[in-house]
């Protein structure tokens, strides 16, 4: 059984293309609109979909995504609602789908039950921002034998010792955090991305996707390093914050602008 994520990167690799990975918080402003936004994004050609499950205290997020979480919770969105939406998407779409969520949502749901639900819904991987490799085993135990990837993150602060260790245990791709700090758009990324990229590349062949602070085509084109993919989140969430239930169109145009 091979994972859709691996297939996608193999495919892109052949075409010498980079993955466009986009993030929204499910249920922002409501689950129906989220579904429409996702359809639009897929229509515009995103490669991998990252869906956030809203949490009361999203402590790795900047103000944009933080507020998206509150909007989603206010619209009553639960973990089960997100699973239902993914099930519905899977009837039509075969795109790799990742859930982005805080570890407590899994833990409290019950790790085993959560992973089973992921399998049933057709989830390919999990991004858990508050689960460093030191603590990952408890969940990986269930994920691994069910073919669900846990996407590891690395940060500019990660030192070589741990980097080697993280990279060794990675699957799917590595989420490379571009900058110190939380999620959110950034005018300048001050990290030495060339060095960061080569340090990582020298350790692994797993695809490397860069995230945090990416917001437009021009910026992305100007980034140093031959990354395998780019993750765009806050820029999309900001559009949703502005246009609410009208946002699918606007998000669509934005994705288009990234692809051009």
């Amino acid at each position: 059984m091979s994972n859709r994520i691996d297939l996608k990167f193999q495919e892109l690799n052949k075409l010498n293309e980079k993955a466009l990975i986009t993030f929204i918080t499910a249920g922002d402003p409501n689950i129906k609109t989220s579904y429409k936004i996702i359809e639009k994004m897929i229509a515009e050609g995103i490669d991998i979909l990252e869906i956030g499950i809203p949490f009361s205290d999203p402590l790795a997020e900047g103000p944009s995504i933080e507020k998206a979480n509150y909007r989603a919770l206010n619209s009553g969105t639960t973990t089960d609602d997100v699973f239902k939406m993914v099930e519905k998407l899977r009837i039509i779409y075969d795109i790799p789908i990742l859930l982005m969520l805080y570890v407590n949502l899994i833990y409290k749901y019950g790790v085993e039950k959560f992973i089973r639900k992921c399998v049933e819904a057709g989830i390919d991987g999990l991004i858990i921002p508050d689960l460093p490799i030191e603590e990952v085993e408890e969940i990986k135990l269930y994920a691994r034998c069910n073919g669900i990837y846990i996407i590891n993150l690395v940060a500019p602060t990660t030192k070589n010792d741990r980097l080697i260790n993280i990279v060794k245990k990675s699957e799917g791709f590595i989420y490379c955090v571009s900058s110190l700090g939380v999620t959110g758009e950034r005018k300048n990324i001050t990290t030495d991305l060339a060095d960061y990229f080569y340090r990582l590349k020298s350790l692994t062949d797993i695809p490397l996707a860069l995230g945090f602070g990416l917001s437009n085509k021009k910026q992305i084109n100007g980034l140093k390093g031959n990354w395998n993919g780019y993750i765009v989140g806050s820029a999309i969430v900001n559009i949703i914050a502005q246009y609410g239930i009208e946002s699918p169109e606007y998000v669509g145009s934005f994705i288009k602008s990234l692809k051009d």
Partner: protein
Amino acid sequence: MMNKKFGEFGGQYVPETLMEALIEIENAFNKYIDDPLFKKELEKLYENVANRPSKLYFASEMTKDLGGAKIYLKREDLNYTGSHKINNVLGQMLLAKKMGKKRIICETGAGQHGVATATVAALFKMECQVFMGKEDIQRQALNVFRMELLGAKVTSVDSGTGTLKDAVSEAFRQWTREVDDTYYLMGSIVGPHPYPVMVREFQKIIGEEVKEQILLIEGKMPEAIVACVGGGSNAIGIFHNFIKDVNVKLFGIEAAGSGVDTDFHAATISKGSTGIFHGMKSKFLQDKYGKIMPVYSMSAGLDYPGIGPEHAYLSEIGRAQYIPVTDKEAVEAFEYLSQMEGIIPAIESAHAIYYAMNLAKQMDKDQIIVVNLSGRGDKDVNQVAKYKGVKINEQ
């Protein structure tokens, strides 16, 4: 090397960006905690800055009035800045200094930890930023100016419920932005490893003093120790040195707010379940999906939806018992102690006093209870007045 877990509780559930910082702190902590020079410096700070040792006070009037066990109060309220918080701040600040840090961030609820941190930061010439919930800033405006006077920058946190838990989250967020030169000085035995261990080590002086003092005064061990539990630092501070003494009963008192059967309480162990939040696996008040619940206690220092992992463990293995006490009961104890002994306790500590009042009556006259009087109540007088419907208008 300290263990990262207490049974299943504890751990390091934080964003990757912070992991190296935690490791750096852990290494420094392991290096210095047994270093005789560091110990000596810390001892001096305890003495010269915190005003340690704190008295073990025999509450003769209270004992007489209740007619049961002898009650002793460990007077952490007499520490400089007015609570036990300074013990931990001195330890961590000294460590941060050794690590070459120039900047300190911290969270605060009622402002006690913020004031203690701002105080020691001033003395250590460290830059200091305090995160405080918007609600708490309004409730404790005076403490805000106290911190500013001491040269600290106070940042209002209006995300979430605008209270302590959000201040912690925001401090974490800020830390990821400037993890290189900044030290996050956590105020209780919560958060990711090594904080729960570290804060305990810097607070255990309380229990060490108590044991020495009670043996000197009474020539025997106490039958019970009672402390309030927010994050749990004052409780672990007084418990730690007695954990092996299995005949000494340990009681942690949680904030029951309007009652544990209402939606307005912060009784984490009584009503919570195991979860992972703020970097640790522990007990939390949460819904079935793992969403952290809004909590309530009139005591800002106990108004937190989690508890330190070591307490979750002590509860699980039955070594300590955790008991809820309501706002109403705490106010009763607040007034009782004020009038009985002339001691106005922090409203946090009043929770522990209330339980001790009941416990004493069920015990014999030759038995002993030690209550951790974790802080002084000046800060709470305004709120208790309001609770009782008295209007205070300072001009």
